[in-house]
């Protein structure tokens, strides 16, 4: 692995009740966050390919960690998302380099230790599935330091608790174009 990970944190959230109604089966989300050194902190660098390689490696690792934490088979994942936060000596463009070919909803920002990062979530086969529009908040009190990048992936095995605002449902997904 090219990335030197300082810290890897996994969050799992399981919702069993909402507005005093049971959520059965519970909805579950996981997020895995890696903190790595930003090799380009403090200066402008034109060629970011080193980070692109690191991003690809980390994306796979973090996705696996989420699936393991949920205790599900990879194909049982229903939605996913990703996000990155660059420490204060870094540049926002470096948060963008972990993009793969598939449409994974993403967000990024520059920030400091303890700052909240909201990872957007969308259905993995069809972006328009309304019950799976969601997000997950992660934070690490000591990250990102000025010369670090926090890279995050979130995976769920479910949509929101008690979804009831209509739109495209999971059962209607065609799964051909990634949208519907």
């Amino acid at each position, binding site marked *: 692995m090219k990335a*030197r*990970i*300082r*810290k*890897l*944190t*996994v*969050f*799992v*959230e*399981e*919702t*069993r*009740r*909402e507005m*005093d109604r049971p959520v059965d089966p519970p909805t579950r989300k996981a997020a895995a966050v890696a903190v790595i050194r930003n090799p380009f902190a403090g200066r402008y660098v034109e060629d970011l390919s080193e980070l692109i390689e690191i991003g690809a490696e980390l994306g796979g690792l973090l996705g696996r960690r989420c699936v393991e*934490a949920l205790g599900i088979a990879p194909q049982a994942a229903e939605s996913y998302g990703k996000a990155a936060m660059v420490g204060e000596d870094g540049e926002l463009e470096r948060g963008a380099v972990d993009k793969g070919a598939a449409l994974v909803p993403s967000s990024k920002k520059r920030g400091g230790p*303890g700052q*909240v990062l909201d990872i957007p979530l969308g259905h993995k086969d069809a972006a328009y599935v309304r019950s799976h529009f969601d997000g997950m*908040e992660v*934070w*690490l*009190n000591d990250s990102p330091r000025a010369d670090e990048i926090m890279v995050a992936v979130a995976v769920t095995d479910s949509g929101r608790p008690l979804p009831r605002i209509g739109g495209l449902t999971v059962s209607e997904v065609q799964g051909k174009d990634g949208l519907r």
Partner: protein
Amino acid sequence: MPEPKLRKLVTIVEDVFHEGGPVRDTPLKRGAVLAVIENPFAGRYEADIAGFMTDLEPLGLDMARRLIDALGGEAGAIEGYGKGAIVGQGGELEHGALWHVPGGYAMRGALGEAKAIVPSTKKVGGPGTRLDVPVTHINASYVRSHFDAMEVGVADAPRANELVLALVMTTGARIHARIGGLKAEDVKGEDGLR
């Protein structure tokens, strides 16, 4: 008193490989389990609340077992622990204090012969409030390498009528511990202190 009404369970596990010093092959693990439950006493002053401590015991034990599982499944690998509570704004600090006894009971029940007092903290707060849960060695509070803490919180909890209950465990000393004091290998393990 009714069984606690559980809205949400959150597990957080950190693998720490280094903090600027030598990189470990086997990371230090720090973990937390948080339960978001309804506060049965929110919105009023209730004189008699102590019975709820017994009601919290099964939940506490379940949380402690989940936490050990999340940290690798070996109770023997756990070296540090702590606990805490966040009380939603409709409650009072005393409601958070209800967690002291069942939280400690849960840790000892799951870890066996842990000797040291479980360090703890609590506060009143709104959704997203973070709590720095103190951590010390499970058998001897004075083990300096294991003085630690873990920040925990849940984005949408506690609501006004809720409690967030937290258990924290670690698998070892701070990642680059080097400030002397009582060492884990020198623990006598008689009084829970040294």
